[in-house]
């Protein structure tokens, strides 16, 4: 009687993989700090119009280069009298968009290339991977500059360029894990149950390869933000007066000696955003790789 009681009682629900990841994430301090930073930037990006005290583009010539914490300018104003705080908040919007969109582009093509070349193998795989190797042989900045100069300098084109230049990396990560996964019996079992190639590649194997891909993508967002700031600094990304962090540094670098905050604050914003994504990505890697989990 006792035993049946025990059996009938609903046991503690088995945690889903998401819950399990969250459980381990909570114990990883670095990842939580990273997640905190990312959350702040994402909230800033979403609620920019509500948070920004002023119009980020409005110029107030009389208030040029106001120092921090004066005249209601918490972070001061820049060389054209625009509110730095508002510009930084709106800058978060641009940087987050760049990060997500360009990583999205890389992921989309990287996954398709990686999965198909690992799955089909043979000549197709060899040709595709050699092309990928060629792309990897170029420094990414050279590659993006080439793409931007073909498409013309703009924020959208910078996103596309960064996205394309990072495709090889995702393709390799995905290909490597698909190669390992596709030999498993469950793939054969699924095939024996009548699954076609598309189903096998994207519905059976790919979900098993997501962990390294997610880690790579998280780290990639930070890198994309940095890259786009670099491109904008070189004048190949966002164009004035867009409040893009890299562009803000570029256009005010001559004031470093007399108005340090105009140059430094966007730099700190970039630093924090990249740091947040890197901390979070590293934490995720520790958690999703069972070999590194203790």
């Amino acid at each position, binding site marked *: 009687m006792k035993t049946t009681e025990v*059996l009938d009682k*609903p*046991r503690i629900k*088995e945690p889903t*993989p998401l819950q399990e990841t969250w459980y381990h994430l909570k114990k990883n301090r670095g990842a939580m700090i990273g997640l905190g930073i990312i959350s702040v930037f994402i909230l800033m990006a979403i609620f920019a119009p509500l948070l920004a005290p002023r119009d980020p583009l409005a110029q107030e010539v009389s208030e040029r280069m106001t120092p921090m914490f004066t005249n209601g300018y918490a972070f001061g104003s820049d060389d054209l009298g625009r509110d730095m705080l508002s510009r930084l908040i709106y800058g978060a919007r641009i940087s987050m968009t760049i990060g997500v969109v360009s990583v999205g582009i890389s992921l989309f093509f990287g996954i398709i290339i990686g999965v198909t070349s690992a799955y089909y193998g043979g000549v197709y795989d060899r040709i595709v991977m050699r092309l990928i190797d060629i792309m990897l042989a170029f420094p990414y900045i050279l590659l993006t500059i080439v793409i931007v100069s073909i498409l013309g300098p703009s924020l959208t084109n910078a996103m596309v360029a960064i996205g394309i230049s990072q495709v090889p990396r995702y393709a390799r990560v995905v290909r490597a894990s698909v190669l390992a996964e596709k030999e*498993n*019996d*469950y793939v*054969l*079992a*699924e*095939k*024996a*149950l*009548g*699954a*076609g190639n598309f*189903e096998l590649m994207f519905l*059976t194997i790919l*979900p*098993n390869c*997501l962990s390294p891909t997610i880690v790579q993508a998280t780290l990639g967002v930070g890198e994309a933000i940095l890259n786009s700031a670099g491109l904008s600094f070189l004048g190949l990304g966002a164009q004035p007066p867009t409040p893009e962090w890299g562009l803000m540094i570029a256009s005010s670098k001559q004031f470093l000696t007399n108005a340090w905050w105009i140059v430094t604050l966007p730099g700190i914003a970039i630093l924090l955003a990249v740091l947040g994504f890197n901390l979070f990505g590293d934490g995720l890697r520790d958690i999703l790789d069972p070999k590194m989990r203790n």
Partner: protein
Amino acid sequence: MADKNDLLLSIENLNFSFDTQRGVVNAVRDLSITIRKGETLTLVGESGCGKSVTAHSINQLNPMPPGRVDSGSILFRGRDLLKLKKGEIEKLRGTQISMIFQEPMTALNPVFTVGSQIADVFMTHQNVSKDEAMKRAIDLFKLVKIPAPERRIHAYPHQLSGGMRQRAMIAMALASPEPGLMIADEPTTALDVTIQAQILDLLNDLKKQIEMSILLITHDMGVVAEMADRVVVMYAGRKVEEADVFAIFEEPKHPYTLGLLNSLPSNTKYKGARRLEAITGTVPDMRTIGEGCPFENRCTFASEICGREFPTETVLNELHSVWCHNYQKVQEG
């Protein structure tokens, strides 16, 4: 022999080989087997003798290339499977021919719940709604005697024990609308003995409940005794003896079959074996087998002719055939 209408599957003179970097491996040579409706045929033989290649050539799961069918035909319900288009084969897999695998640890997709994996099979082949598919999955779990099926259906593979996972695999194989043939590739090898017995009982029960035939691949003579109606003994890609299960155990005619039985523990009954006997030597390199009998180099009964040509079939009675030049010597002991 069997009535023609009774025949579910017949493999005729199948030759299957693999092109490897170091030469051609003839994995299956001149193999013919038949399976009738509701029958369990077991393929017995040691590792690398072509059992799995034979099974996989039925639903064409062998990697091709490097594998290729050199000749032969595989008739299933009157259709030659080797002549079907890729799409037709895919439709057949999981609807009429299903398969269970050796390793329940790896044969279920680790990132999906077992229930959703079974429901998927219903949804791809039978166009039912998700709720309906889940309901049927629960029914199947009941059929394969998984306790608390409503809860287990939401478990991930790693949350189930090995035996439970193998039951889930079987449930998945049963999710076909018109089960005809179930290929069981060493379904119990990875399980411990008590679970093994349970799974075998389950398969026998299911076979009675659902009219299906089982092609069981194994190297375990104990499993053969438990399950088989008829037995085909394979060695190095060749069929060497075929008989009903009683004849195999009572009067094995091929020296290799005899060797297999003698290497079972505590079987003093067979031809005076007193201690565990091993078959001396190893399986020959599959690339260098000539026209002779592949067992020749390990056979205690081998004579000069064995090295030269593979024996033709000797029909002993309607169920029992042997391919051996010297089977009479085996009889005498």
